[in-house]
């Protein structure tokens, strides 16, 4: 299984790295792992590439890995969620939320989407929106 993920975010490497370390933008899951994170300028003013190399985490062998993958709680999927949310926060100022995925990008949601119809008050609260 690949243990690498990357995203490109508009902004200089210095600025992106500063935001990465700031409170409001911190990618919580990645921070909680031993992942190696590196920043490098993308060619042609495309911004900054963030590369995450996730050390293989003991996950209970192949069956365990498959179970994690099915539930969306596989480490690499969670790393990608963090990267997409970080990019969106930095570039747009918000975490994009839909009716199907009100929490924003969330691997666990992929398998159990809400219907794409507006949320009631209690659901909104649960989704943190």
């Amino acid at each position, binding site marked *: 299984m690949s243990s690498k993920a990357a995203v490109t975010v508009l902004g200089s490497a210095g600025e992106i790295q500063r935001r990465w370390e700031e409170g409001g933008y911190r990618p919580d899951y990645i921070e909680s792992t031993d992942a190696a994170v590196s920043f490098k300028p993308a060619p042609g003013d495309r911004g900054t590439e963030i590369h995450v190399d996730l050390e293989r985490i003991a996950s209970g062998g192949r069956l365990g890995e498959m179970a994690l993958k099915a539930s969306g709680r596989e480490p690499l999927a969670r790393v990608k969620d963090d990267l997409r949310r970080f990019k969106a926060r930095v570039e*747009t100022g918000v975490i994009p939320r839909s*009716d199907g995925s009100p929490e924003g990008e969330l691997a666990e949601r992929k398998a159990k*989407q809400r219907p794409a119809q507006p949320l009631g008050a209690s659901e909104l609260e649960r989704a943190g929106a």
Partner: protein
Amino acid sequence: MRANVWSGRNQVEIETVPDPTILNDRDAIVKITSTAICGSDLHLYDGYVPTMKKGDVLGHEFMGEVVEKGRGVGNLEVGDRVVVPFPIACGNCWACNHELYAACENSNPNAGMAEKMFGHSTAGIFGYSHLTGGYAGGQAEYARVPFADIGPIKVEDDLSDEEVLFLSDIFPTGYFGADLCEIEGGETIAVFGAGPVGQFAVASAVLMGAERVIAIDQYDYRLQMAVNKAGATDVVDFSMDPDIVEQLKELTGGRGPDAVIDAVGMEAAHGHGALHAAERVRQAARLETDRGHALRDAILACRPGGIVSVIGVYGGLLDKFPAGALMNKGLQLRTGQCHVQKYLKRLYKHIRDGEIDPSFVVTHRMELGRAPDGYETFKHKQDECVKVVLKP
């Protein structure tokens, strides 16, 4: 509020759902005054687009009045009358900065799902499956519009809803299809499909200066509209003769059109006997998701060195793709969901200046509650249906 929801293949129904609320600072809530059924909604209705969920609010062509807005929406005021583009775009990412709004990198919160299917995610779209975000659509009384500071265009009161509603999708989409053809004046353009998008592709090619525009369809009433309203110079009615490629050669002195627009997509109705039958079976068995007669014939008909512009919607995989003709004839294949936000001001001005009145496609007007009838009428082309407008 009342909304038209998807409830399974060939089934939509009016349901009462919660009213939408502001979820982000850049959201606005729009009270919908007019909304429409799009040809691409039929792909959802017919069950050819994966990741639909029972209860999904449909609709990506809508307009109305801003009734609430988040703190980050500085360009709109409560009470403004707006048309909302179908792709949701953040306006901040690299793609949006390059006017590739339908490729927005941030507006799809199900990006991981789209990446698995397409390699990359593209923009979120209202009411168009969970692959494009899982956003509630606009066949409803109200809609939440994310990134409302980027998408919606304000429209003046002296224009009717029907004159401006189609800025949301089909007018820019048809225009985009013609724009991809790089028309400079004097060209011959063939348009597969004389549905609503095809009508606007014809009208746009004429606006851009094409000398001959050939509309292709199997319904005479649609071809009549293409000639009388959109400005087509010639027609090919394939209900009379299914060999479209030969007829296009005949009409162009053997050269073939300079550019061909596929405004049909994955549910092409024409095709040659055995291949068409085989594709219907493969599609029904979900071995192949897309029927490709229009695209195949577009490639075979286009003159060497010409452009094939694909604005009809495809969703998955296609068999028997004529790669040899594409390569050896040196064709350019250009395609995409329309970058609506790029074209809005230009097209609004065309309407404002009286150069086009997009309401010519409207054949049916219904109350929102009759949406299920509207889908059936549109799907089966009953009563010479071209476009259904719903009023909440």
